[in-house]
Structures are given as C-alpha cells and as structure tokens.
C-alpha cells in the first residue's frame, strides 16, 4: 500500500510552505502545489494522496472547482478547505460535495493537524477496505465455474447431498470442491465464508451506489 501522502494547494507561498512544514511534524510526507491545475496533472500524487488541504480562492481553477473535477474523475480523497473567504453558497456547496472540513484563516494550527490526522486515517481505512475487497475479489475470481456453483450452494446452506443433487455430481466431488473453495478463499469455517461473501455483496452494492 502506498505511504499516506498529504497534498497542500495554496497560491500564497508563505502559507503553502508553513502548512507543509506543519503537517510534516505529524510525520506525514507532504507534496505541495501552487495551483489546482498542477495537482490535476499529477497522476501519482492523486493516486497516493490521503488528504487534500486546499485554499478556496485561487487564480485559475478554484478550490471548489478542483473538488468538482476530482469527484468527476472518481477520486474520493478527503478534502479540507482552508480559506479567508467563504460565503454561504460556496461553503454549503463544498460541504454538500463531501468536503471533510472547512477552516477559516487564520485557524488554530492544532485544529488543522487534528483534522488532517483524522482525514488521513479515514482515507487509509477506506483504502485498506478497498484493497481487501479487491483481494477477495481476486480469490473469488480464481474459483472455477464448478467451485463457484458449490460455493453458492454452501452459502445458501445446502447440505453436500443436496448440492450434489442440484449439480448432478457425486457427494465426493462436492466435498472435493468444497475443500478447494475454502482453500482458495482462505477461510477456515463456513461462517467465515458466508461473512466474506455477504460482506462482499454489500460492498459491491455501496461501491456502485
């Protein structure tokens, strides 16, 4: 998994530098940019970033504009806005679009650090969950057609005898497939298998939602 990276975007040099240094005291690596467009064009940063600390009003693409673009591109990293400005429509929009927080300058720097910490943890947790999901998916994909069918029967609570009847194979064959399924999916019990499959099913739904 990638090291958590915090990305800071602010067109004011002093603010950008001071924020970078501050966040680094948390022991987190920071990459900073003077404009929103620069961030958009850096694929690697976008991939690695666990948190984006963003000024609202910048020349060119604004902070909220960047938030929108990232959303459309499918990036869901938490964004913390820091700004001297902030009227109702803008802040409401930012929060509605899923901003993690909105701090008014000059902010209490401990507050920023706390929120960055929380955002990074949140992002890390979500990545871990996604990675796990992807891994499970790989394992599931590695099942043969027959093994898949047997797994479906197992999860449905069918006895081996019933599964054998459903699929028109011998009980022995069912037992063999069963063992392979448990092995490939790396689970030790039926309960665990069910949890895995059910959990994956729900995750799938939320991922598409």
């Amino acid at each position, binding site marked *: 998994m990638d090291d958590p990276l915090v990305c800071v975007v602010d067109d004011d040099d002093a*603010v950008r530098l001071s924020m970078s240094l*501050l966040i680094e005291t948390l022991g987190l690596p920071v990459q900073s940019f003077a404009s929103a467009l620069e961030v958009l064009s850096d694929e690697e940063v976008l991939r690695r970033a666990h948190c984006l600390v963003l000024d609202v009003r910048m020349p060119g693409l604004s902070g909220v504009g960047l938030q929108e673009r990232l959303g459309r591109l499918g990036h869901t990293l938490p964004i913390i806005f820091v700004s*001297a400005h902030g*009227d109702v429509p803008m802040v409401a929009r930012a929060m509605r679009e899923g901003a993690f927080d909105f701090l008014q300058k000059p902010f209490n720097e*401990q507050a920023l650090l706390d929120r960055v910490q929380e955002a990074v943890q949140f992002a890390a947790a979500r990545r871990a969950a996604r990675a796990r999901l992807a891994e499970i998916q790989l394992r599931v994909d590695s099942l043969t057609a027959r093994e898949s069918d047997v797994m479906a029967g197992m999860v449905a609570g069918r006895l081996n005898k019933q599964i054998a009847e459903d699929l028109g194979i011998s009980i022995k064959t069912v037992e063999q497939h069963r063992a392979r399924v448990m092995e490939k999916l790396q689970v030790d019990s039926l309960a665990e298998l069910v949890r895995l499959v059910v959990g994956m099913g729900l995750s799938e739904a939320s991922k598409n939602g």
Partner: protein
Amino acid sequence: MAVEQPQAIPAEADAPPPDAAAERWRLALEASGDGVWDWHLASGHEYRSPLWGAMLGYTPDETAGLEWRHLLHPEDRDEALRRLEACLHGSTAAYEAEFRLLGKDGKYRWVQARGRVCERSAAGDPVRFVGTHRDISVAHAEIENLRKSERLWRFALEGHGDARWDWSIDGGEIYVSPSFRSIIGLCGNRPVRGNDIWPERLHPADLRRAMAVFDAHLRGREQIADVEFRLRCEDGAYRWVAVRGKVMERNAAGQALRMTGTVRDVHDRHLAVEREKRQAQELAHAGRLIHVGEMATALAHELNQPLTAIRNFSGVVLRRLDAVGPLADPLREPLQMIAQQALRAGEIVHRVRGFVRKGRPVTAPVAIGSVVRSVVRFMQPDLGANNVRVVVDLAEGLPRVLADRVQLEQVLANLIRNAIDAMAALTGERVLRITARPGADGCVELAVADKGPGLADAIRADPFLPFATTKADGVGLGLAICRTIVENHGGRLWVEHSSPTGTTFCFTLPALAG
C-alpha cells in the same frame, strides 16, 4: 448803493452818474447771471435788470411792464407773498423764497429770490427793497428727480414688506422700519442708534464675515452689500437674516455718509439648508466609511495570509522542539507567545471585518462552544468591571452549526451586554448563565440568562422592535439586529422568560449534519 442806469423806465430826478466802483458791482452781478430788482415802495416803481427778464425769456422792454405777482405759479404764490410781506414788515431780516415764474414761452421756471429792505422810514415802514433772482430750474429739477425716485423706491419697498433700515453713518442714527423691529422683537418706536444693531447684535461667529462684506461696499470695492448673518433678538435668541444695502450718499472724500437697505428673516430657510448640508455631510461621511469598510475588509483578507503563515511556522518550530527535549525549554514560551499574538491579531482582523461587513454572512462550520468561550473571553474586562460571574454550561457532543462566526459573536456579545446592563443595579450576586443544548428539530439552542429585574414595561411587548430602548444613550437596534442575524441563519430568537428575578433570551441555530 448806486444802481445802474435803467433803460426804459420813467426818468428819475438826479440819477447819480456812474463811477468805477459802481461799475464793478454791476459787472460782477452781470457775470453771476443773477437778475436784480430794486423796488421803491413809495412810488411803487420797480427797477429790473435785463437779466431779470432774460432768464424768463423777456426782452428788457417787455420786462419793465411785467407784473411779478401775475407771473407766480398759483401753487407757489401764497408762500412767496407771505415771505415777502414778512420781510417787508420786519418779521424776517432777509427775504428768501423759491417759486416758479411764467416765462415768455409759457413754461414755468424755478427762481430763487433773495432780498432785503435796505431803507426804512422813521416809523419803520419799508422804503426801499432790493434783491436778486436766481434761475434754479436745473438744480430744482435734479432735486425733484431725486425725490421722485426716492418716493418710488420707498413705495416699492413698503409694498414688498421687507424690513427697511436707513443708516446715517456719520450721525449714527439708524431708522429701522416696523417690520425690522418685529424681526428682532423690538417694541415701540424708540429711536435706535446704529451701534445698537451693528455690531452689537451680530453673532460673534458671523461678525468678521459680515463686517468684511460691508467694508468692501463702503470702500467702493463692491456694488452692494449683500450678506447673511445672525442678529440677536430681544429675547436673547439669534435669528438668521439676509441684509442688502447700498450707500446713498458720500462726501467729497468718497466716504459713505448714508446707507440704506433691507432685512429679511431667513432663519427657517437657513436651518433647513444647514440641515440639508449636515445630512449631505453625513451621507458623504457614511460613504467614506463604506469605502473605509471595504478597504478594511480587503486589508483583513490580505492580513489573514501572513497571520496564517506566522501561526503555522511557530507551530512547526514548537513541534520540532519537542524532539530536542528540555534543552529547548527556554525557546518554547517565547514561541508560544508569537503564536498567541498571531492568534490575537487574527481575532482583531476578525472583529474589524465583523464591524464593517454588511450583506451576506461569511459562513463556515462553527463549534458553538468555541464561539461562546471566545466572546466571554473578549468581554472579560466588562464582566469583571461589573462584578458579573459567568457560568458556561455546554452540553456534550453538541453538533456544529453552519454560521458566520463573527455575526454569532455579535449576537452573543449583544445579549451579554444587555445582561450586564440589566444587573447594573443588582445588589445581590450577579450571575450570567450561558447554556447550549441540542434543541428540537436538529438545532442547537442557546440561552443567555441574567438575574436582573426583568424587561422594562416600555419594551416588554416587543423588545426586538427597532428603536425600542430603555437606555438613555441607546439607539435600540441591538436586539433587532440580533434577531435579523439569527433568522438569517435559519434560527429563532425569543424571550424565554422575564420576571423580577431575571430575564432569559433564547436562540436556536440549525445544526450541521455530520
């Protein structure tokens, strides 16, 4: 006295021969242009010089036969004859009269007659009466024109209703018309001296200006004196008047002898103009304030960046110092103070923006507790000075609200201020309670409670009404503004409780989900 030899009158016995001295007198009289008459009352004969007749257009021959009384203008006859008789009878030493005489062309001419009885009998009867006639038609016409124009002028003024004044500068007397008197409340007809009005009644602030205007005219630099100033009335109050005047007479050296003019009471108009000017000035001032406000706002925005950087950098240093351990102790406190001061500067900028900002709120997710603590800290000097103990009671886990922090602070500061004032006369313990709880419908409910005597009757019905105030120097807008702010945020502000033991104001704010 010898007299010239007449030409066509009956010869007299023994007219004395002309001599050099007599000739001189004759020539002088001729040169002066005056006509001469010489009347012997006993015989009734009257000698008249050629000029006597010539000034009326008669030849010497015609002159002799003229009957003077018949030439007199009917209007002037009585007076002329009266004066004549007076002199003849000795009532007056000299004869002096002005009258019109009919000329040959049928036109009257003004003539001035002067004469004396130069010989009387032993009984005192006049024997001989001698004198001159002077043609004063031209001078008379001029005087008559002057009088006519003055009459017209006076008539016009009287008709206009303006108050008049007529000032004999060297004599000092000033005539003030009844209208003028009533402007300054002067009763009766007591004569007024110029000094009683000018500069005595002039307002000190207008003195120099008014005198300068009059001076300019008196010296001939300006055509007319036209100036407004305040005059002190009989009751002591000052009234604005508009004065116009012109010098009517000057002496040979050009100095003003007589000045006359009008006065108008313009007090009300002046007040109205002054009021308009003040309003315009205030508007301009407000306009400038708005500019200042916009400048201050722009400045505040600009300042926020370096202030943020200062805080961040001092935060960085403090955290890096943690790795150094106790060796860094002497460095920590000063650094913390740097950070504190940056925070303080930020709050000042915050407040400045709050004061001058108008229009839409600048919102962000706000933690109520932080706002309450910040305002209480800010008002500590006031609270301390008034011996008010503050109890802050915030529920756990209060959701944040989407609000303009500065405006919220204004609302709280206002309510706290009112609470302090309410308890100003309280002898018991002065306690101010600020509470915050989750309210109904996903909002946060705050309460500010004092132990004062409750809302005054005057404002109890609706304390939020604009301009409702019980404070002597209050404007009465505080609560109205607070209510507007709270309602703009989607909340409500109301009086929860008001009794002789205290008042509680409550307001709600919609909570931010999540």
